């Protein structure tokens, strides 16, 4: 597997119509490491994430300034092939969103888009992806069952497998455990730690302990601005900014 790319966001501002969602965000994620984005609801965490794979394109009247380098390409540049970009930058959503197909067809959805039709190759990709997502042991022999019959935690790992099957270099996760019970959450967190090194990851989370457990870097956003970012250990033990400290100690109004 090739080396995952580093991510460098520089002075990124985003507007939804007249409303400003992000102001001058600058962030770095070294190759193969995990960045956690924390902050209150509506602070712009998801917008940062959705800028990186250009899902913000779907919002009407969206505008942006600045750059976001994934490896050597500025994903916000005008000439970027959005479809190719999304194959490099995978995404996992807050609500598990398996398609109404079988487990196999869910994972094979991406590879089939690439034109992989050969049954044996498809099967291998599906198996590898399910193994990487730590779901293989639970669904082996049940690949033809409908994916929506799986439990919530299994569905979310299936969605991770589905994202991994297109062989991305970057993985974006938008509150991946917000809809899950503690046990499933623990499994997903373990999975993130395992995938570290092979993928550069950005994880949005509301759960501060989770951010502390899984990430190398943490960035705290408030009202569309980056308040503070740094190594996770530093942010959680010796935050420089009072607002960060208030937030992580729960004195946030």
């Amino acid at each position, binding site marked *: 597997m090739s080396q995952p790319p580093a991510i460098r966001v520089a002075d990124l501002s985003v507007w939804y119509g007249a409303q400003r969602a992000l102001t001058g965000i600058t962030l770095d994620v070294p190759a193969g490491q995990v960045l956690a984005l924390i902050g209150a609801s509506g602070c712009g965490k998801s917008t940062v994430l959705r800028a990186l794979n250009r899902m913000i*394109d*779907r919002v009407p009247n969206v505008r942006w300034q600045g750059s976001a380098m994934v490896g050597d390409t500025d994903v916000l540049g005008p000439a970027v*092939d*959005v*479809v190719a970009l999304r194959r490099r930058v995978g995404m996992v959503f807050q609500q598990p969103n398996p398609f109404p197909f079988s487990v196999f067809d869910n994972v094979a959805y991406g590879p089939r888009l690439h034109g992989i039709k050969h049954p044996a190759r498809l099967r291998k990709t599906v198996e590898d992806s399910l193994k990487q997502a730590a779901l293989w042991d639970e669904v082996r022999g049940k690949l033809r069952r409908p994916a929506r019959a799986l439990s919530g935690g299994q569905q979310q790992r299936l969605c991770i497998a589905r994202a991994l099957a297109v062989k991305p270099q970057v993985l974006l996760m938008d509150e991946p455990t917000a809809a899950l019970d503690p046990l499933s959450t623990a499994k997903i967190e373990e999975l993130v730690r395992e995938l570290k090194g092979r993928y550069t990851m950005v994880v949005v989370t509301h759960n501060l302990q989770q951010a502390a457990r899984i990430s190398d870097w943490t960035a705290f956003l408030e009202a569309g601005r980056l308040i503070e970012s740094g190594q996770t250990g530093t942010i959680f033990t010796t935050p420089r900014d009072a607002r960060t400290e208030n937030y992580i100690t729960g004195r946030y109004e």
Partner: protein
Amino acid sequence: MNRRGLTLHRAALGLAGVTGLVYAAMLASLLRDGWPLLSWRFLLGLPRELEAGGGVAPEILNTFSMVMMAMAVIAPLGLAVAVQRVEYGRDVWWTRELDRWSRVFLSVPGIVVGLVAYRVLVAELGWPVSILTGTVALAVLNWPFVAVSAGDALAGVPESLREGSLALGTTRWQTWLFAVLPEALPSLVNGLGLAAARMIGESAALIFTAGVNVSPHWGLAAPGETLAVHLWYIRTEGLMPDATGQAAATGIVLLGLVIALLWASQRLALWLERRH
């Protein structure tokens, strides 16, 4: 949207545009042929069999009276069936069968109802081919539509609303009247509007029950050609020299009525929804 992989969507846009043009052309030809004949004399005059310059006043009156009478009967009856099925309904074989046949009768052809009504009412009971006979045929034809659309409207009300009301110690009837009905009213009104539009446009069920001619004096036992039947009759069998134009002008009046009715019922539904 992405720049790439939009071929199908573009083709759909093109096809949809062409389809829109076809409907526009249809409307345009209706207006082209019918507009010159539209006048107060046309709206207020009597039809003429053999000469040009006839009007459609009796047809307008017949359409209104038959649709309103049929509506007066099936709106409450259709709602009653819907309430019985949705609020009090048990799930046993005969209620399931009733629901199934409701859906079958939803698409019963008007001519089939006409065939049966003609035999039962006209041939066996000796009723004249008249406004009353036509009204019964209209009511029978559209009762299932009202019952099903009202049932859908009631079923759309969340169960939690009923439980909340019943938990306060009200009877089921009070629950329905004060909790369910206001919530369902907008879609009920929409459904009734569609039912009335269907009835205004109905013709197959009426040809043999209400007839293809009019009487100068309105009465329940008088023949009751409606606008839709009139359009069909003069366009297929009319002998007047301006038959095409007359038919088109009748079509414009008919279409105007349908659109006005749908518009009004949609506005009413919207107003009810906002007020609620």
